[in-house]
């Protein structure tokens, strides 16, 4: 199985540990074997260990260490936000966040909705069963 996601300038990564947990960052430079310089529109450019990053499939086209304006423009041009939020990984993260922020009342409403949906599914199944046995 060859590698598909490489550490390169312009690779979008997800921070999986530390103060910026959960943020999408761009690798703008590689410092040494273990560390990269990363940047994101809402953070100060800084170094981070590769162990704290998870690479994504998204890559943008930038030169080494662009200034903030260019970086933001490149992110807009590549439409990273939408690509991320429509990817299955991005969607899963959004659902996790939503579930974690649910109110007690919201959880109750979801329970009612699940029961309703299961009821409808079961009815359809019963109908289909009846047809096949008939």
């Amino acid at each position, binding site marked *: 199985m060859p590698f598909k996601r490489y550490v390169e300038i312009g690779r979008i990564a997800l921070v999986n540990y530390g103060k910026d947990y959960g943020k999408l960052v761009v690798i703008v430079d590689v410092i040494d074997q273990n560390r990269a310089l990363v940047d994101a529109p809402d953070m100060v450019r800084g170094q981070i260990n590769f162990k704290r990053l998870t690479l994504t499939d998204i890559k943008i086209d930038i030169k080494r260490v662009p200034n903030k304006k260019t970086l933001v423009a490149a992110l807009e041009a590549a439409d990273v936000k939408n690509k991320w939020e429509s990817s299955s990984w991005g969607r899963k993260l959004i659902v996790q966040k939503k579930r974690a922020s*649910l*109110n*007690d*009342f919201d959880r*109750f*409403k979801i329970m*009612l909705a699940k029961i309703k949906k299961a009821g409808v599914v079961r009815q359809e199944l019963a109908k289909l069963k009846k047809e096949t046995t008939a």
Partner: protein
Amino acid sequence: MAPKDRKPHVSRNPDLIRGVGKYSRSKMYHKRGLWAIKAKNGGAFPKHEKQAAAAAPAEKPPKFYPADDVKKPLVNKRKARPTKLRASITPGTVLIILAGRFKGKRVVFLKQLTSGLLLVTGPFKINGVPLRRVNQSYVIATSTKVDISGVNVEKFDDKYFGKKVEKKKKKGEGEFFEAEKEEKNVLPQDKKDDQKTVDAALIAAIEAVPDLKSYLGARFSLKAGMKPHELVF
């Protein structure tokens, strides 16, 4: 100046650190304008003569001096006030009761009484919890709020919920085991009416929100996978 509403006096000498002011004595003299007051008064600070001390009533020497020193109790300036209400609990909040016969019930908060306890109601028709007092510590506040503006809770206080004092009957020998104590505690009709009036406005507000009625009718319980420290209420 006539003593009107005086603002509390702010120091003109800001602290550099605690105990060290920014300005020296001579600078402060100038800042306070003592030179101007003295100039206005012809060179000396205006004095007023001492008020003649009112003649104290003649005290008799005490008859008894205790042999050892009597200790005076320390001064206590604390005032009794109701328990501090959590910021998440406001009138109309849905609370989850955690202990007692109504544990798990979701209930509407009305107001905090002077004793610190929270006045709460089911509403009775929805989940069987009457107008009741509950302690803040045994309650989880959810972020769901009910519109409580149509409800008048002025008349409820701690005395309303106190035990009724019975008039003591005279002890009679033969009457000890009679039917006196057989009458169970029947709720007086006016309390039932109070419940109805409070609940009427509440239920109207509750039915305006979809699913809220069945939400208040259901009990809360922890299911598998629910981590209370991670749940948002």
